[in-house]
């Protein structure tokens, strides 16, 4: 598909470095965890997991996102998608735990919306650097929400992993995780020790070129799973023994260790 010319209809400043852009293009069939390729004309195209049927939530980190932050309501971006494999939604009677760090709350929020609408209870561990950067706390209000902040400005002082270490995970049927890879890997290690990593789904990031599963730039060792097509959501069992938590590749294909 060609990029869909999409007009920005609303911009919400979630925190100084995070904004949610709403578009006049709605991806009605999108499954939570699926992404779109976002083309910032004249700059670059980057993958962004949908934070809603017609929204992306963006942290300013590079050329494309910086240029996005210069755009206003009425400006346009090109959107291709939805692409990739999303999260497996919970069944009616399942117990759910969300673990989100920073802007990693964005891919998980649509899942929280769904389970709230279905009347399923979800427990959330929501981490951020400080109280100003807590993302989507109201969307996770489908059960208990444990907030952690790096600087202790709200909730528990520390990381989501500190909270997780004290949380009994044996009762949860599904655990959904998204955040910085180091954080996700630490979560993975804790849950693996408890032997519940197979109930867990992680939303990964890698450098994408084609975004549609052809070029192989985002393939992970050792199975050659493509993050853009076989993921970006992977079950914990698929990540065992993989490069996950150890290294990724840059745009030239060189390994960069975490």
């Amino acid at each position: 598909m060609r990029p869909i010319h999409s007009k920005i209809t609303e911009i919400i400043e979630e925190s100084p470095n995070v904004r949610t852009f709403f578009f006049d293009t709605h991806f009605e069939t999108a499954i939570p965890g699926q992404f779109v390729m976002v083309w910032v004309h004249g700059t670059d195209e980057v993958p962004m997991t949908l934070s809603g049927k017609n929204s992306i939530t963006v942290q300013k980190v590079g050329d494309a996102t910086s240029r996005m932050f210069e755009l206003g309501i009425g400006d346009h971006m090109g959107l291709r998608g939805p692409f990739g494999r999303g999260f497996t939604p919970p069944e009616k009677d399942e117990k759910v735990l969300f673990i989100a760090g920073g802007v990693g709350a964005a891919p998980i929020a649509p899942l929280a919306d769904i389970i709230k609408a279905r009347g399923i209870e979800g427990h959330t561990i929501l981490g951020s650097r400080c109280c100003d950067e807590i993302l989507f706390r109201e969307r996770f209000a489908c059960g208990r929400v444990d907030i952690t902040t790096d600087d202790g400005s709200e909730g528990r002082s520390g990381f989501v992993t500190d909270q997780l270490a004290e949380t009994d995970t044996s009762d949860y049927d599904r655990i959904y995780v998204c955040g910085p890879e180091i954080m996700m890997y630490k979560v993975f290690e804790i849950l693996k020790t408890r032997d519940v990593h197979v109930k867990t789904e992680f939303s990964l990031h890698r450098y994408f070129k084609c975004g549609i599963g052809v070029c192989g730039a985002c393939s992970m060792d050792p199975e050659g799973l493509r993050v853009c097509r076989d993921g970006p959501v992977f079950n914990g069992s698929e990540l065992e023994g993989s490069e996950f938590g150890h290294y990724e590749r840059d745009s030239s294909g060189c390994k960069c260790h975490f």
Partner: protein
Amino acid sequence: MNIAGIELKNPTILASGIMGTTGAALARMGRNGAGALVTKSIGPVPKKGHNNPSMVELECGYINAMGLPNPSYSGFCEEIGIAKSKTDAPLIASIFGGDSAEFTEVARGLLSSKPDCFELNVSCPHAEGYGASVGTDPDLVHEITASVVDAVDVPVWVKLTPNVTDITSIGRAAETAGASAVVAINTVRGMAIDIHSGYPILGNRFGGLSGPAVKPVAVKCVYDLYKALDVPVIGVGGITCPQDAIEMILAGASAVEIGSAVHDDTQIFETINKGIDAYLQKYGYSKTEDIAGLSHEMI
């Protein structure tokens, strides 16, 4: 089957640029039935490639301008090693450079990882100073091919661009210089523009067309090269099903490479191999070699 100096497991080869960035991805395609594996094109120094969008699906195929991203030969040896350790499909190293010295440097630099063959990319249509910038000149192609052939002890294939007035003159230059096979075709120069923003869609503005759109172009190039050359022709361009592969083989291909079709089906190699076998059986042939170039005899 022994084609152009290497022992293929079957006539379907993973084309360059597809799932070829890592050893793991290459090995996966080997497990999925590819008869041989061509790596992403590797050059003398690490290269980030063009900005995105770098590949977009159009109405009848794909347009791409990756820009030859690669970690350089020194960074890639390990990946070839991994691919070779995890699959028994022959590993063909695609390489590029700006001149024969660079090509030779890259080929030599990869030799320690023991690729089974080299494929010279003198045909990428959108990398300034590389690819088709050299591959449209028969003299340069001859010089580059001869130096790599001289530098390595495995077969050398040369991948050709269709974006020339006469592809057979380039093919002949490769053959004369000692290439064991020519591979045709690389992508066809093309471009797509987003009519709403007015921007060309690719980060590089233009790129190369692949997929079903280019199959008739590839069939014609393979047909012409088969007639003009003595070395085997490897057919590539728009093959998405067994019928396409058979058409290419009838035109003169000894084997085929498969690229964009991996988008729709990562098991495409197995599917196509089964289809070719069924065709051979239906029409009473015993092997692919029996039908390679057969259309030339139908007059």
